[in-house]
């Protein structure tokens, strides 16, 4: 499979810009050290050429930005809204699921967006690189299937990319782009991944072990809301946790109950809507494996009500706003679990 390059993306974006089809580009911007890529909005070809990057660290799922960026706002000088031209977004396969899910929920205006699907070869987890190469990374580059690292303390190093792939990419669920106007590079297939293995491992623990596991993980939470604010499913105008009228509002977890409350309710609110893009775990500053909560819901929903992939189709009915007459009873859920054990 041919790799897709930053230059190809810039070329495509520049072409669309020059044709007058798009006014701005939602993409990724180079950082200081190679790995600290920032989502960015590019308004000109020059800007693209100077700052745009697509590579192993273009991990951020950009789809959520469309909610704000396609808003109908009058009275403000938002250039791209005043023109007929659209905003260009680059979508990796997993981003395209979020894109569809947001469309299903009427969260952005498809008419204002030009979506270019880009081939994804998996993203690199910088934490994993640092675990191998140590701290003091002077530069990080990709060369073929390797990640080339220059370090302050351990010299230069070549690490197989496969060894430092982000968890969500190791367990990639799909290389297929489910939404795009145009495609750069190749699109793949839905993958029969092992993404539920870890959930299963936890399910097999005793309740005490499970409790200890989650108590330990969730106690790390500093309630920075990064998981929520990065999550493409969490696009509420007002989150219940920010709303004093909701009765559950709080700003920081005062104790283990509130830690659990926040994460249970958050996972519950995105249950059936979460596309498993893995942004929550990626952005968590405390490395809490939050995706394991979402995947539990996904796994349960698949097992109880039949396979469902949020975002695979626009307009599909999320399992928790649906039912069949013969659904499993809440009590039977556990009997089934005991059989498996």
């Amino acid at each position, binding site marked *: 499979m041919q790799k897709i390059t930053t230059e190809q993306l810039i070329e495509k974006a520049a072409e669309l810009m020059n044709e007058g089809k798009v006014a701005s580009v939602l993409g990724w911007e180079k950082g200081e050290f190679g790995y600290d890529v920032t989502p960015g909005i590019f308004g000109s070809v020059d800007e693209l050429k100077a700052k745009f990057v697509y590579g192993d660290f273009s991990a951020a799922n950009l789809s959520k930005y469309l909610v704000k960026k396609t808003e109908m706002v009058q009275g403000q000088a938002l250039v791209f809204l005043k023109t007929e031209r659209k905003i260009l977004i680059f979508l990796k396969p997993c981003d395209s699921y979020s894109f569809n899910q947001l469309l299903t929920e009427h969260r952005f205006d498809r008419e204002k967006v030009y979506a270019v699907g880009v081939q994804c070869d998996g993203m690199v987890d910088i934490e994993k690189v640092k675990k191998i190469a140590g701290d003091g990374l002077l530069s990080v580059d990709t060369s073929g299937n390797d990640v080339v690292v220059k370090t302050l303390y351990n010299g230069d190093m070549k690490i197989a990319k496969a060894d430092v792939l982000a968890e969500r990419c190791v367990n990639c669920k799909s290389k297929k782009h489910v939404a795009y106007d145009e495609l750069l590079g190749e699109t793949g297939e839905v993958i029969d991944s092992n993404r539920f293995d870890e959930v299963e491992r936890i399910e097999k623990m005793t309740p005490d072990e499970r*409790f200890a596991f989650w108590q330990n993980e969730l106690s790390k939470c500093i309630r920075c809301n990064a998981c929520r604010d990065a999550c493409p499913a969490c696009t509420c105008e007002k989150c219940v946790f920010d709303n004093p009228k909701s009765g559950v509002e709080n700003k920081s977890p005062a104790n283990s109950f509130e830690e659990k409350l926040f994460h249970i309710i958050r996972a519950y609110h995105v249950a059936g809507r979460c596309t498993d893009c893995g942004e929550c775990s990626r952005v968590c500053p405390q490395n809490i494996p939050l995706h394991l909560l979402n995947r539990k819901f996904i796994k349960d929903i698949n097992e109880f009500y039949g396979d469902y992939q949020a975002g695979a189709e626009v307009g599909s009915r999320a399992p928790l706003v649906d039912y*069949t007459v013969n659904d499993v009873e809440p009590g039977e*859920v556990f009997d089934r679990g005991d059989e498996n054990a």
Partner: protein
Amino acid sequence: MQMKEYKPLIVAFCCNWCSYAGADLAGNNRLNYPAEVKIIRVPCSCRVNPMFILRAFQRGADGVIICGCHPGDCHYTSGNYYTRRRMATLFSMLDYLGIEKERTRVEWVSAAEGAKFAATMNDFVKTVASLGENKRLEDLRCKR
């Protein structure tokens, strides 16, 4: 000295049309169940937000039970079907977090099933009592 008998606190959400009436019938027929059970009336079991359940545990409940019309008999035709999905997934998640699954229950009780209501409550109180106090979803601030 004998230890004071442990009495769990049970919150029961009952739908107005079937289960609340079922509880009334249990009363009409003088069918005893423990006073630890406190009923909150909701129009339909589908009105029960997972946040209410967590709230109850936070405030010191040891068990939460949701009672609604039998599937197919919902006054609003489909409310309890949603309840069923919501609670199946929520309870499974609580179990996943290591919270005793016996502390939560959904039971379908019709307006004619006073006896079932009483029996269900007796059984649920017994089950929760055997687990002891809710420690895993407690908020110590509420116990000061």
